[in-house]
């Protein structure tokens, strides 16, 4: 193989958009004035402060509208992780005295939900981790059966970051409403890619963030339905309706709103088309399996098991051709455990070690997909020849 490719990467094809996305130029442009000229503190009463305040509230309005919420039901946070921690911990501590200590979640949540739950267990919470089927969908009957008089909240990830499964929020919301329990979804991956409507889906809490949708890193938001009592994680000057003190990250929030405003239906169609092309192309390679569902799948997610070769070796090879991919999720790269999501859908250790995630964006092109498929065919052939497992 052309060793030169290694050292002068001619191409750079970024297929790790589930980890994070590039910030759109339009977003950067919208943010810049809020660093240099409109740098005010949104809590200040003077003109420059009020300018920042206006930008903050306009941004809040945009985020609220995008999910059918009211302006004062949106709290900006420092990340998706923070918003997820806030919901679970804030609600748990707000209900400490009324015996509602049961949390229902799933086995395929992002680490920030799972680890917040694990910590809450040390604080007296009882947590049910729902199973999923081999495509990553929860079983609504199992959910119904799991709800008890002590159940406080059901928290289900909307679009899964590893395998792209999109859960049926409407049906889950219906059950939660009937049974009088709160309903939260972590929508970091699905936001602007599939519909979220807090009323139709009966949602009480929704976690959002900016960096998965071509906005800046370090900005998140939490929808909290009006009237629900929740204890803040951060006490201080009373920002964000007293629920999240910290001087607001105005440039980041403005960028977040801009990234929502420029999201288009046509981008989804574009990604779906390329996703399907990539999936179909890969599945033509012998002995490959799709992880996650064919339908009801995030428009940007591809996750495939290339049997008998190591996912990381494929990733390393792709990288040498300038193609960025990921084995499991970027976050779990810190841990020694094989992906809990692939485990939950019943993949074996060997299959998990053979899996690669490719996640596209609105910027991915048809030519890039052709190139990736060509390279993948070569790499898989080469690595299979090298493998002692047949």
């Amino acid at each position, binding site marked *: 193989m052309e060793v030169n490719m*290694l050292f002068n990467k001619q191409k750079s094809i970024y297929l790790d958009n589930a980890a994070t996305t590039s910030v759109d130029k339009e977003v950067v442009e919208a943010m810049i004035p809020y660093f240099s000229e409109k740098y005010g503190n949104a809590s200040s009463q003077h003109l420059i402060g009020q300018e920042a305040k206006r930008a903050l509230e306009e941004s809040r309005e945009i985020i609220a509208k995008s999910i059918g919420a009211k302006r004062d039901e949106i709290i900006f946070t420092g990340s998706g992780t923070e918003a997820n921690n806030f919901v679970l911990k804030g609600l748990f501590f707000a209900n400490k005295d009324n015996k509602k200590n049961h949390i229902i979640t799933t086995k395929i949540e992002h680490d920030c939900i799972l680890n917040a739950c694990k910590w809450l267990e040390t604080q007296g919470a009882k947590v049910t981790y729902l199973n999923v089927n081999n495509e990553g969908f929860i079983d609504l009957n199992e959910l119904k059966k799991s709800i008890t008089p002590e159940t406080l909240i059901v928290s289900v990830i909307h679009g899964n970051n590893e395998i792209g499964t999109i859960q049926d929020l409407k049906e889950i919301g219906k059950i939660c409403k009937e049974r009088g329990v709160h309903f939260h979804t972590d929508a970091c991956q699905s936001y602007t890619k599939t519909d979220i409507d807090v009323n139709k889906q009966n949602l009480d809490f929704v976690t959002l963030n900016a960096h998965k949708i071509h906005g800046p890193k370090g900005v998140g938001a939490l929808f909290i339905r009006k009237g629900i009592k929740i204890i803040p994680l951060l006490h201080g000057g009373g920002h964000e309706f007293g629920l999240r003190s910290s001087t607001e990250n105005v440039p980041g929030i403005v960028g977040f709103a801009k990234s929502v405003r420029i999201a288009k239906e046509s981008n989804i169609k574009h990604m779906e088309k390329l996703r399907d092309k990539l999936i179909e192309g890969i599945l033509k390679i012998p002995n490959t399996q799709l992880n996650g569902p064919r339908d009801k799948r995030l428009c940007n997610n591809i996750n495939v098991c290339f049997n008998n070769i*190591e*996912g990381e070796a494929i990733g390393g*090879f792709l990288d040498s051709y300038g193609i960025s991919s990921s084995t*499991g999720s970027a976050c779990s790269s810190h841990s020694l*455990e094989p992906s809990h999501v692939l485990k939950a859908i019943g993949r074996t250790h060997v299959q998990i070690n053979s899996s690669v995630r490719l996640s596209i964006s609105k910027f991915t092109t048809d030519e890039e997909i052709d190139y990736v498929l060509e390279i993948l065919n070569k790499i898989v052939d080469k690595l299979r020849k090298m*493998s*002692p497992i047949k």
Partner: protein
Amino acid sequence: MAEQFNAYTKEVLKRFTNPKHFGEIKNPDGVGQVGNPVCGDVMKIYLKIDKKTEKIKDIKFQTFGCVSAIASSDALCELAKGKTISEAKKITNKAIVDKLEGLPSIKIHCSVLGANGLKKAIEDYEFKTGKISKKSERYDDEDGSCEGNCAIAG
């Protein structure tokens, strides 16, 4: 932690993308397979040995593993080829790391896998030729030397 950022040396990448010694030897004089079910790496080393001189005439590998595991296998073969059995036994994982001009610290284990693979293949040869009466089991998969770090720095 710094090593995690500059993940691989040029030598690792060169050997990984263009290994010279992969493949199978038909009717080998010795075979060693090491690996660990936890991280799912398997390395198989084949030897062809000149019975008179006890030199390794040919050595090939097959590896199911990460970037570092494949590069380590190739470096190992290069180091061992042409050496006598007793010289080859002295090849350490450190020699493999040096040959690769370094491995990320979390990937040192992959070089250990390589060194063990060769030792096991030599043992197989010595067993088959009656030089030893019993194979040790210390290179087997259960030794826990692999920490399953494959996913890291991918």
